[in-house]
């Protein structure tokens, strides 16, 4: 029977590696003015998160949503966020939800579950009871009621709708065609225009290229559209100004290799990131030709996409005017960082965020 001894001794080895325990969470605080960073996480890994950052105190709360709402996760694959009054709307493509969060508490107020196969990308609002969401994989936008968190209609718009914005009583939807993947399909590279309340078709604007985010600036009265490069072809990319009334392209700033952009509604400027650096464009310039002043190189690159640090999002603090650059790290496998720059391109500071900061909002 002594033969059993080595067997029994070996059995004692099993289970000697303990599971890692969650680290202590950051202390929660209420911030009257803050930045919130949506960390995309990884596709189908269910690990999107929110980071709260208070500029005044330089404090952060990682995993803000999970900390304020114990036992819950924000969801799978963050795509976009939208701040509207005391509400924060977070769009999650794989969870196929829009999470509604109270500001500044961070409490979950509920969520809109979208139909399977929607893959929501971005939201915009027509009025208090009418909102829209673009559905990347459904070639459609859905109208929904933010007061009741109910979907109220589906409207086909074209291949892979991404950016949405409301202006002049119309809904504008940018169909990316997923870059090169569906660029040959009818409606790719086109901005579809619908009535912002009824969803009735109004028209289209054929811009061409890999259309992305869309903003409306009340200060100029125009829409601004991000047209990204379709890598590895880095010769394309631009910021396009659209007239929401005439449905005409007014101006186009060429930014070859563009892959991230944002606008500053206060200063009426746009910022765009390429592998060469961060560019600034003056949107208020009264130049109505198709040859506007070239973008200014504010922060020289290179920002290579083959390193383990890649710029992944841009935001502008509406109060300080500071430019926030969200950096994905570790080949998109490690927690990211946000770098803060002054308007002269000086690096002012950095703070840690979650996995792949994809959108930055402020209140």
């Amino acid at each position, binding site marked *: *029977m002594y*033969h*059993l001894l*080595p*067997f029994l001794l*070996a*059995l004692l*080895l*099993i*289970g*000697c*590696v303990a*599971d*890692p*325990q*969650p*680290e202590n969470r950051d202390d929660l605080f209420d911030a009257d003015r803050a930045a919130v960073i949506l960390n995309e996480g*990884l596709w*189908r*890994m*269910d*690990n999107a998160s929110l980071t709260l950052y208070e500029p005044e105190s330089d404090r952060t709360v990682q*995993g803000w949503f999970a900390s304020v*709402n114990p*036992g*819950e996760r924000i*969801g*799978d694959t963050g795509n976009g966020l939208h701040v509207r009054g005391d509400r924060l709307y977070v769009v*999650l493509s*794989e*969870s*196929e*939800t829009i999470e509604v969060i109270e500001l500044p508490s961070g409490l979950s107020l509920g*969520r809109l579950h979208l139909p*399977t*196969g929607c893959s929501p990308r971005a939201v915009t609002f027509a009025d208090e009871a009418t909102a829209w969401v673009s559905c*990347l*994989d459904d*070639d459609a936008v859905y109208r929904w009621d933010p007061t009741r968190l109910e979907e109220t209609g589906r409207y086909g718009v074209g291949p*892979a709708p991404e950016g949405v914005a409301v202006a002049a009583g119309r809904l504008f939807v940018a169909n990316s065609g*997923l870059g090169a*993947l*569906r660029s040959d*399909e009818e409606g790719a590279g086109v901005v579809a225009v619908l009535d912002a309340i009824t969803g009735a078709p109004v028209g289209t604007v054929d811009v061409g290229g890999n259309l992305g985010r869309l903003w409306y600036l009340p200060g100029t009265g125009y829409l601004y559209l991000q047209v990204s*490069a379709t*890598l*590895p072809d880095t010769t394309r990319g631009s910021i396009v100004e659209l007239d929401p009334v005439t449905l005409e392209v007014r101006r186009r700033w060429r930014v070859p290799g563009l*892959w991230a952009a944002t606008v500053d509604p206060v200063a009426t400027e746009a910022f765009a990131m390429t592998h060469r650096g961060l560019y600034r464009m003056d949107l208020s310039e009264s130049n109505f030709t198709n040859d506007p002043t070239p973008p200014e190189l504010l922060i020289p690159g290179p920002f290579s*996409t*083959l390193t*383990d640090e*890649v710029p*992944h999002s841009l935001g502008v603090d509406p109060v300080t005017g500071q430019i926030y650059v969200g950096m994905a*790290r*570790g*080949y998109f*496998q*490690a*927690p990211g960082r946000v770098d803060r720059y002054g308007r002269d391109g000086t690096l002012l500071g950095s703070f840690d965020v979650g*996995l792949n900061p994809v959108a930055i909002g402020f209140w």
Partner: protein
Amino acid sequence: MRVVRTIAITAAAMLLPSLLPAQRVGGDPVEVDSSAVDSVSYESGSLDDDVVVVRASRLRSIEVAGARATTVIGRELIEQSGRTDLADALLLSPGVFIRRYGGSGSLATLSLRGTAAGQTKILVDGLPWRTSADGGADLGTMPLENVEEIEVVRGGDGALYGSNALGGVVNIRTGAQATPRYRSTIGLGSFGQRSLTLSAVHPLHPVHSVHLHAAYRTATNDYPFAFHEFGETREVRRENSQHESFTAGLGWRYDRDPVSAGISLDGFTTSRGVPGGVTQGNRELTEAELSEREGSATARVEGEIEGILLSTAVRLRLNHLRYTDPEARFAGPEGVDNEYERSDLLGQVRGVWVPDERMAIEGVIDLDRSRLLGENLDPSVGGEVERTRLGGMLHATRYLDSLPFVHRLTIDGGVRFDRFSDLGGYLSPSIGLVVQPTHHPLRLRGHVALNYRAPTFNEQYYLNVGNSEIGIERATSLTIGTTWAPTESLLLEGSLFRIDTRDRIVSIPRSPVSWTTLNVGRVESRGLEIGLRGSVLDGALGGSLAYTRMATIDRAGGVTDGHRVPYAPDEIATVALVADLDLVRLTTSLEYASHRYTLAWNSPETALPRYGVVDLGLGREIVIGDIDLLGSLSVRNLLNERYQIIRSYPMPGRSLHLTLTLHTTRPTPE
């Protein structure tokens, strides 16, 4: 004796790398005793003073004489430990972790010593199951029914096996090599599991025999599982996890001393759902399907000329694979519908020369040509890619005995050169030592090898990911260990290992929407393996244990340097116990793995917790004349453990399986 002789020649040709060190000094080249194949005794592989007898019994689990850390899992051990598929059976070896994506028939890949699936070479009857261009094997599609023996060589060995043998080698021996027998099995189980298998090796004549096998397997796999969604725990059933497969083979063998020859025709067809993960209540890929059919023809001739054992083999394989996902609208209104045609032709000539009783030399020349036609290849290659490889290997083993302070010393060295049409040429050397200090059956061994892996076609040419400029991965593998057989019924093995993989091929993003492959990774894997096989009470109680404690660490130098590689647990163990009672045989096993990080950044939130799955089985064997009737009832996951091996891919809970096997043998006609 003829049977033994035939098996000896065949085994020498097919399993030579492991058998060479086991040759008798001063006797026949190799003695292989297959008499214990169907016995119920718990004999151990013996480690005599003058001869190592390689037995085919269930307890010939650890190669006792070679420089390599080797575990052999025989048919009996597979059946008596309740293993139902190939991936399950491999867990009986130390160093093995199976990354399963679901229940029966689902995607399952092998990780040996922390390496990736494509970094272990899989052979079937001595020939590569896939070429270097194909990548990691899906064990979920490999039938177990026709497998007679699985040999797991742990540690890199490119010198003997060429590309992909970074973590080790799995050599599967099928029924084509078995003695005459007839077997039929019917299986029923939970979640729609049904199986019917037939296999036979039938002697037509003293020198001719035919072998055939056929297996049908199906399952709905609609098992319930619980998940946490928006603060609530819900239970739903797995969707789109069904599978259906049919495998068949037919062959002929000719054995007339000193020549043997054979032809085999094999094929399979499978159709299965490819379910995605379950995240926040969403069940992804509910309509994606993968269907595959494959046919292969293999011809072999083996013989002895002027004292040299010669064997040649040629195999042609054709494979068709189709993946559909109507929900994948990113690819267009109809979704994804991709088809791939793969073909490869492989030829091998092997010679074994034993110039004297203290030395053996083996040489191999082999050639393979791989071709892939399909969609989603880089437009620059026009939908078709090819690769040709020509390789040669020289391997020698030298025995030294009557040395001062050492009873016996074995030196084992090999070198291999492969030249690829698209990658250039690569040299893979290895050297091993086995020291037996005294007559006592205790051996110390060490093995070091420089290995490589050629990139797959996908890594080179897949649309928006492939990079035709990438080169090979290189790895240095070191194993030192000991093997001890203190009694006839106990075998212990321990190994320390280290694998340093450089220029690892990884996919990295070059933009938010496109990725590329580059040789920028580096991974170090190191650890301890313990293997135990034994029996007590005159064989009435037997068991095996495979335990591995290891660390697989990112050494690429980035922000994740020093972190654990995803899905490589620090601790793996499989324990199997078999008790032969008066009326029934009772089997139980435990499969355990410690936590696995799911991301290169090892925060606690990215870890999946450890799991332990207990199986329990009852078997009863009735002998009626020449026919053995074996019935077994097993409960898988007895304690209904809720676990995931891969994040968002729930595994089945408790399930029942009933198996009835009819088995008989008959002697070779005189």
